């Protein structure tokens, strides 16, 4: 015991130093925690796997990670007097297939010594719950507790003379890929009273929008906004034209007949989005906690507003965002060939 304690004590700085190097290099998702809980026992490692090569890399990394954790975790348990945990970790280490013989040679007597020191389970020195959970962690990673999705809400100001209404707000994950949204169903933009109703519609990528003529005159809908450009041709009252919006970004809607008609579809590539009401208020629902890039588009702003948002378990409330108002509605909207029209001429 005393001999093992001596060498373990001398090894402690080395173990901790190496662990710190590994943890900082890995940028492991698990935050540093107090007490004796080991830094990096969350498994599997957050390495994306898309190819067989990714899988091979991940398998190697996780094996090395497991060995390191069992090795150092046993040492930390030993130092804390938790011999049962130390024994369990080191015994687990010795069962890792293909273990380096040098590790086996060094650890096997240590595991045996720890087991010898460990009290029977019924009389154990009440290892902490943290330590107890860490025993099982390296073998079968504990499922990460799933946090409830939450809401992100706030108010947008700015937008120039027309105000912030209709601003489109969306979140994209700051670390990792944002889930692809499912297309929305039943989206309609009407031509009513020589206006697009709604004036601005936010839809997820892949959404099919019905353009419906509710006026007694012919209408046309076209957009020159690439890559979502389209042209419905002419259609009369009651007629409908379907258009699927496949690429993210703003899409300006125009009518080749009526130069005063102007509207927008904003295509978002995130399931976490909302549109501001007339007062600028918005709520994005169903957001998993995490770090996000928030972005706001408004027709009256020449650039989008961006902000980093940390969404906690309680969500985010009271965000105060501002969009620009430097971009006026175009006075001379183009016809479908791109030629500007003066709306006061002709029709």
């Amino acid at each position, binding site marked *: 015991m005393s001999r093992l304690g001596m*060498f373990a004590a001398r090894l402690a700085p*080395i173990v901790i130093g*190496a662990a710190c190097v*590994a943890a900082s290099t890995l940028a492991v998702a698990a935050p540093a925690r107090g007490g004796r809980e080991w830094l990096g026992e969350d498994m599997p490692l*957050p390495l994306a796997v898309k190819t067989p090569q990714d899988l091979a890399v991940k398998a190697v990394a996780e094996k090395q990670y497991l060995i390191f954790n069992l090795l150092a975790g046993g040492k930390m348990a030993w130092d804390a007097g938790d011999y049962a945990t130390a024994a369990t970790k080191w015994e687990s280490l010795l069962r890792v297939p293909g273990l380096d013989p040098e590790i086996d040679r060094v650890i096997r007597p240590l595991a045996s010594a720890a087991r010898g020191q460990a009290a029977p389970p019924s009389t154990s020195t009440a290892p902490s719950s943290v330590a107890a959970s860490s025993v099982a962690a390296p073998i079968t990673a504990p499922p990460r507790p799933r946090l409830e999705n939450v809401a992100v809400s706030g108010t947008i100001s700015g937008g120039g003379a027309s105000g912030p209404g*209709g601003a489109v707000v969306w979140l994209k994950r700051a670390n990792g890929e944002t889930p692809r949204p499912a297309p929305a169903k039943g989206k309609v933009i009407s031509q009513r009273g020589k206006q697009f109703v709604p004036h601005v519609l936010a839809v997820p990528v892949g959404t099919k929008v019905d353009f419906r003529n509710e006026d007694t005159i012919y209408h046309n809908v*076209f957009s020159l906004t690439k890559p979502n450009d389209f042209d419905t041709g*002419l259609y009369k009252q009651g007629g409908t034209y379907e258009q699927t919006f496949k690429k993210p970004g703003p899409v300006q809607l125009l009518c080749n007949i009526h130069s005063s008609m102007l509207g927008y579809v904003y295509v978002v590539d995130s399931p976490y989005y909302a549109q501001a009401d007339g007062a600028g208020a918005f709520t994005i629902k*169903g957001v998993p906690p995490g770090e996000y890039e928030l972005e706001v588009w408004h027709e009256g702003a020449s650039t989008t507003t961006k902000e980093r948002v940390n969404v906690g378990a309680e969500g985010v409330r009271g965000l105060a965002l501002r969009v620009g108002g430097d971009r006026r509605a175009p006075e001379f909207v183009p016809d*479908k060939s791109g030629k500007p029209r003066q709306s006061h001429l002709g029709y």
Partner: protein
Amino acid sequence: MRRVRGLTALLVAGGLSLVAGVARAQVPGAPASSESAPAPEALEEPSENDSDGYTPPADATPSVVVGGYVDVGFAHAQGDGTSFAPGDTRLPADYGVDTFAPAVNSRGDVASTDSHGLFTNGFLPHSVGIGGRPSFLINTVAADLKYTPPSTGLMVFTRVLALPRFSDTGDATHVLVEQAFGRVIPFDSEELALSVGKFDSVFGIEYLDNESNIRTGITPSLIARYTTGQSVGAKLFYRIQLAPLWSALSLNMAATNSGTFVDALQTPDVSLTGRPVGSVRLGYELNRPRVQAKLGASGMYGVRNDQSDTAARQRALGADLRVAFAGLYVNAEAVKVDEDGGGPKTNDSGTFMFASAFHGRGFYGQLAYALAVDAGPLHKITPYGRYEMRHAWFEGFTPITVDRITAGLRVDLWEAVIVKAEILINRELSGAPNVANNVQTTSVVYSW
């Protein structure tokens, strides 16, 4: 000690191999780490955030819109800025048939009309008076005001131009109410618009591009002075859609105090005879998704507006074509103008002793290619070229034929700035000595 060294080595080696393993996993080309999630393509998350969209309340849309533009430039005309040939001693030295070709700006103003004492009796254009001196110009400061009461079908529009001129030998600085009219769209079910006031011509197509913040190039065509003038009166526009043919037919007609000549050539805003001049354009348009083609035929008839003799008539016929395809724009227009002779003539440039009968024919064809660019402030680059010819004569005088070749480049920056540069090669083909009167001109237009 041996065990200590062994464990130390193991720990260090384990840490390093771990670091190395992870580092290998992050080489370029390797996928970015992602919260142990499956590939994003595999996820398709139904959203709780479906939006019904946003429509501003009717009273939120401003009923008064104020806009406009400022057009400044730099121009240089060869020679003395006129088309008078030095040493031309013909008698009568009448340059009435508009050899004042070297237009230098978007208004069609010429560099100079100084005839050096020679008798002139023609349709004198406006002049910026810079002669042959390269000069900066403030071409136009325009202010538009549009008032549209909600849900009424009414609109009131005014466009006021300030034309600062700083040369003693050119026009004086003046302010021009170029347009001021009310328009009503009486039926929701018809494309019918009625306008009353001072408005653009309905003849041809060049009036559609009359302003420098709209026109592709800088200078108007040689025939623009016969077709793009504003006048006071009443106007009707009607269009019917032929949906199965992706087509439409339109009728644009007006009865006005004066004809379609520009303000320099006709008495502004009043009728000297009390009889209106009628003008009309019939149009056909094909609006396919990738191709637009528009054809038109125009006519104008009425008493000659620059004199009080009601027997002196003016007539004009025109044809126009516009084709747009994949960023390529073709514009072409031809016009035939005839005016009867009459008594003393009054126009914006003054009163003249007599008015000869006048005949003019001309055409232009313009080709432009708009290349959309998304590079910072750069939005669009449009090279363009134009060829045009005019043949005209006063009765009793020698017909004069001129042509002009124009090449230019237009650059659209941000959403409000246009920079244009243009070279005009002016040639006197017959009836007058050829003169060195080519022009280089530039224009910067800021819309607000």
